[in-house]
């Protein structure tokens, strides 16, 4: 660690930057004002906790600007078993979250062209193209991303990450840990858990070498505990959607899930979700629904369309449609019960084999059918995401089964989670309108 880097970090981030962000957020939280341009006739006021979401994310990226040379930095995939790195004090960056943020800020096209112009195909996931574009050009809406000292890729979400992280490893010339998770057609067999557990144990040595310290198991247990608590709270928050009217929609969830992804294992994340839950319960008590005049309740499958969140949420709300549950946001909570604080490594192995993307289409269908039943849903929108092949594969059959077996109308909506070139407003409106007419709203 150089003295200059350390001074910079402590002065610009610790002493000033993070304090200013915190002070501003606290003030905004205390004197919470509804945004002026909100459509109060169709949508409830945004959650007050949104101020905190913004604060924590801003602080996270702000720290990233100054963190190199002060804390070791890891870049990890969204479904990576990050707890070991957390316990070793790594600053963790999630390129997928960063790419989603680029999508929401409509920066994807500019950044991903940097990768495309160097030969990366447009058929690759737009998250990977965005990240590689940032790697090559330094472009990012958050100012600057820290360089990684280590990379951790877990194949429990897709195989794209394997090749994408190899590109990063070569470019940054840093060690890459790959955790290979066998695809599950059913629940994981003991030998599959063992296989992942061995990889996790073997990864510790590399991580310790980069962090220049040994893993403290008490710390690991604490991080695992905090991860579990955050995920469990998140699950509870989502389940509040069973209320009629639903107090939050998946469009709210898409925003507030950021922390359970990129800051799980932190104490402040647990506090955050506890506060969020309390605010939602308050809404329930007052009978407030996310959509003012909730007439129909829908399911969302697959990633969000980050650059169209507002449009979609308003368009649907105008017709009294609340999208109350999603397989995607659910994925960050459904595994909480599997985490066993007293058996950290083995339970991490087990948990991280089971994400929905690492499981069969049949399983995904069961999750959807269960949600339709439990959340009393009237239909489903399945976003066929041009980028995310593992999530989108099987959707044609899943959709057909929802229509024939569950007797629920279901719509396949073709788009991309962040590449605007795979999205057309008129066509989406046309399909949604026809779907809404079919639902009778």
């Amino acid at each position, binding site marked *: 660690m150089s003295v200059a880097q350390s001074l910079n970090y402590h002065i610009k981030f610790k002493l000033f930057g993070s304090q200013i962000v915190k002070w501003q957020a606290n003030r905004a939280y205390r004197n919470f004002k509804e945004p002026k341009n909100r459509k109060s006739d169709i949508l409830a006021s945004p959650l007050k906790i949104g101020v905190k979401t913004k604060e924590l994310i801003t602080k996270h990226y702000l720290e990233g600007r100054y963190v190199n040379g002060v804390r070791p930095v890891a870049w990890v995939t969204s479904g990576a078993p990050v707890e070991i790195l957390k316990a070793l004090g790594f600053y963790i960056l999630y390129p997928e979250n960063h790419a989603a943020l680029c999508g929401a800020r409509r920066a994807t096209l500019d950044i991903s062209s940097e990768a495309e112009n160097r030969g990366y195909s447009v058929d690759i996931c737009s998250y990977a193209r965005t990240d590689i574009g940032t790697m090559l050009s330094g472009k990012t809406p958050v100012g600057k991303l820290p360089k990684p000292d280590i990379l951790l890729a877990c194949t429990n979400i897709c195989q794209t990450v394997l090749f994408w992280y190899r590109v990063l490893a070569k470019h940054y010339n840093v060690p890459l840990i790959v955790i290979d998770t066998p695809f599950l057609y059913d629940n994981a067999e003991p030998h599959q858990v063992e296989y992942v557990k061995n990889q996790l144990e073997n990864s510790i040595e590399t991580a310790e070498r980069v962090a220049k310290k040994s893993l403290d198991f008490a710390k690991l247990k604490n991080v695992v505990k905090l991860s579990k608590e955050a995920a469990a709270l998140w699950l509870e928050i989502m389940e509040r959607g069973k209320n009629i009217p639903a107090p939050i929609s998946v469009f709210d969830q898409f925003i507030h899930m950021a922390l359970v992804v990129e800051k799980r294992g932190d104490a402040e994340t647990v506090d955050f979700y506890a506060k969020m839950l309390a605010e939602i319960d308050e809404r329930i008590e007052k009978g407030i629904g996310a959509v003012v005049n909730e007439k129909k309740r829908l399911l969302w499958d697959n990633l969000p369309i980050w650059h169209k969140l507002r449009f979609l949420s308003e368009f649907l709300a105008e017709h009294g449609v609340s999208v109350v549950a999603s397989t995607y946001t659910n994925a960050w909570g459904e595994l909480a019960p599997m985490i066993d604080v007293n058996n950290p490594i083995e339970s991490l192995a087990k948990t991280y084999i089971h994400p929905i993307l690492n499981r069969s289409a049949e399983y995904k269908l069961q999750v959807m059918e269960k949600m339709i039943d439990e959340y009393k849903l009237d239909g489903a929108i399945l976003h066929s995401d041009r980028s995310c092949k593992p999530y989108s594969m099987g959707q044609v059959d899943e959709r*057909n089964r929802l229509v024939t077996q569950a007797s629920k*109308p279901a719509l*396949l909506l073709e788009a991309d989670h962040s590449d605007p070139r795979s999205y057309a407003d*008129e066509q989406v409106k*046309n399909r949604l309108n*026809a779907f809404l*007419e*079919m639902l009778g709203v």
Partner: protein
Amino acid sequence: MGVKSIGVDAGSTVVKIVGIDDFGKIALYRMEQADPQIEIQVDRMMDEIKQEYNFKDIPIVATGYGSELIKNAAKRVTEITCHARGAFEYFKKGGTLLDIGGQDSKVIVIAQNGHIVDFIMNDKCAAGTGRFLETSAWRLKIPMEKMGEIALSSDKETPISSTCAVFAESEVISRLAHGEKLEDVIRGLHRSLVKRIAAMVYAIGFTPPLMLSGGVVLNRAIRIMIEEEMGTKALLPEHPQLMGAYGAAFEGLDSA
């Protein structure tokens, strides 16, 4: 006979207007190539109709891509609902409607009570639409209305494997360059389109009977090949292009 309701289908290639009478029969219809300024065009067409039929206040329902621009429409309804309604009112039964237009195609499963059970659309890509034949016809300098008859004059089919309109066009040229006969290649081109469309029907689940609409089914080769591909006879309305406007006119009766 009096006109009870008017449906306007402002499609991306053709504007269609249908007026229905008390018995739900087509009392009048108009079809024109769509102008870029569709609003002015529809106003003019409506003025002409009003003069000729001498009526003032009857409901107008608009559908199609340009429907937003039809300012004096009492309401706007999507093409899916209008086509389903049109087919149900025309054939008086449920089934699977396959509509193949110049720039999009759709499959709608209609229940026996007329409700929409399910639908699927292709409007993102020329594959599976009239545009697929058009690009090659244009390249070969063959008028579109001749394409079907040329295809039917062939007794051997040259397979065209591309479903992409752009790739198919170059495949057609290369087949011809290799000495294949024009009619065989064009028949193969039709087959490729029909296979793609049949796949759409199967993807959503086929409920008989099969009903056809849209400008492209005026092409006899397409109709014959769809029946071959689906292994069933298809029902064809008198004016396949008017299905959307016809259904829209019925939607107007509801709100009247």
